[in-house]
């Protein structure tokens, strides 16, 4: 790792000020992505601003028809939250299957959404549930938030503060984990919210997480696994790497989508 300074922020305002002060300053939350990256010398921050201990970013709140989760909330806390289990069991299941127990004890929802790894799990839930991503500057809808692989609508000095998920009528997440890393080879989040029906696919898209409109339309007329298993995502839009070729991923998407719909019934 290159040399850097470390600063533990006490408030979001303090973190924001420090982040804006120097282009080379970087946030660290759980560090489960950033520290491995630093070890590979793929990043060279001046100061790491630790937002992991900010109390205002560590909470899970069930209010009205939505659940709001603070950005620095750990995967393990989402997985074991009674509120999440009650209103959004699909999200509890998703969080419980990220990486391994030690990763879940440190990694955060905000870090996962900010990083937008094409194989990460939370982006599928955020897009599949039409989540609202709150930052220290504004509120961003999930659709315009995810702009490409490892790319988001976040500005350089913007901090995710919390994420709001509506209670869906039905929802499920099924992933085919990479047997070594547990990241998604393909993960499909299906949801029927009061507003619309969504199918979000992670692990497979050449531009990161994406919605599968054709499946969404088919499910609107008939909510059943058979409706989606016959629909194929064109291979041109999919990742092809040592873990799996595009045609294999395309097949997995149809199968995982079918299983996800079945899991809601």
């Amino acid at each position, binding site marked *: 790792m290159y040399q850097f300074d470390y600063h533990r922020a006490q408030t979001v305002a303090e973190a924001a000020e420090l982040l804006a002060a120097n282009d080379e300053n970087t946030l660290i939350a759980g*560090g489960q992505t950033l*520290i491995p990256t630093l070890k590979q010398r793929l990043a060279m921050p001046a100061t790491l601003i630790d937002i992991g201990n900010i109390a205002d970013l560590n909470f899970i709140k069930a209010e009205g028809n939505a659940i709001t989760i603070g950005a620095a909330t750990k995967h393990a806390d989402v997985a074991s939250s009674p509120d999440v289990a009650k209103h959004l069991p699909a999200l509890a299941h998703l969080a419980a299957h990220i990486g391994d127990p030690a*990763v879940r*004890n*440190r990694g955060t929802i905000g870090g996962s959404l900010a990083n937008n790894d094409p194989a990460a799990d939370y982006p599928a839930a955020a897009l599949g549930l039409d989540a609202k991503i709150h930052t220290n500057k504004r509120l961003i809808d999930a659709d315009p938030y995810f702009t490409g692989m490892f790319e988001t609508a976040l500005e350089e000095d913007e901090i995710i503060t919390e994420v709001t998920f509506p209670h869906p009528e039905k929802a499920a997440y099924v992933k085919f984990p990479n047997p070594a890393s547990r990241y998604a080879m393909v993960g499909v989040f299906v949801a029927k919210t009061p507003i619309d029906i969504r199918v979000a696919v992670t692990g497979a898209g050449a531009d990161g997480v994406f919605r599968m409109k054709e499946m969404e339309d088919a499910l609107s007329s008939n909510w059943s696994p058979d409706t989606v298993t016959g629909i194929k995502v064109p291979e041109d839009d999919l990742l092809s790497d040592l873990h799996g070729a595009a045609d294999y991923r395309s097949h997995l998407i149809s199968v995982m989508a079918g299983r996800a719909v079945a899991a809601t019934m």
Partner: protein
Amino acid sequence: MALVSMTVNGKAVSGEVEGRTLLVQFIRENLALTGTHVGCDTSQCGACVIHMDGKAVKACTMLALQAEGSTITTIEGLAKGDDLHPVQQAFKENHGLQCGFCTPGMIMTAVDMIDRIPNLDEETVRAELEGNICRCTGYQNIVKSILDAAETTPA
């Protein structure tokens, strides 16, 4: 350099570290507690698992300064004098190790899972070991050791 202080295995400790000093480096090099191992640089092997404020974490994927003010248990903190911790004893009795390199991390992960999950079964133990890699045993006797320890540990 900055000063970092924490409680490790019941003792207050402190030391001078750089921003980039990993917690595992601080534990091994400053405190000379070399039971916590480093088996990879990709955060995948779990040889470095310790407990911070009661939770299993990878000491190679944290900065020492992130542990400021925390309470840490390493593998050296489990035994009471000459009496092995029940999980250590179970690994000994069930041949839960061969070379022993992964063992500290395996045991720290096992202690945490037994504390957290009542009525452990084999499938759960295997799923919970996702972040701990062993190159020798094929996991069979590690799983057996953990199930044995879980049975003998009062809930």
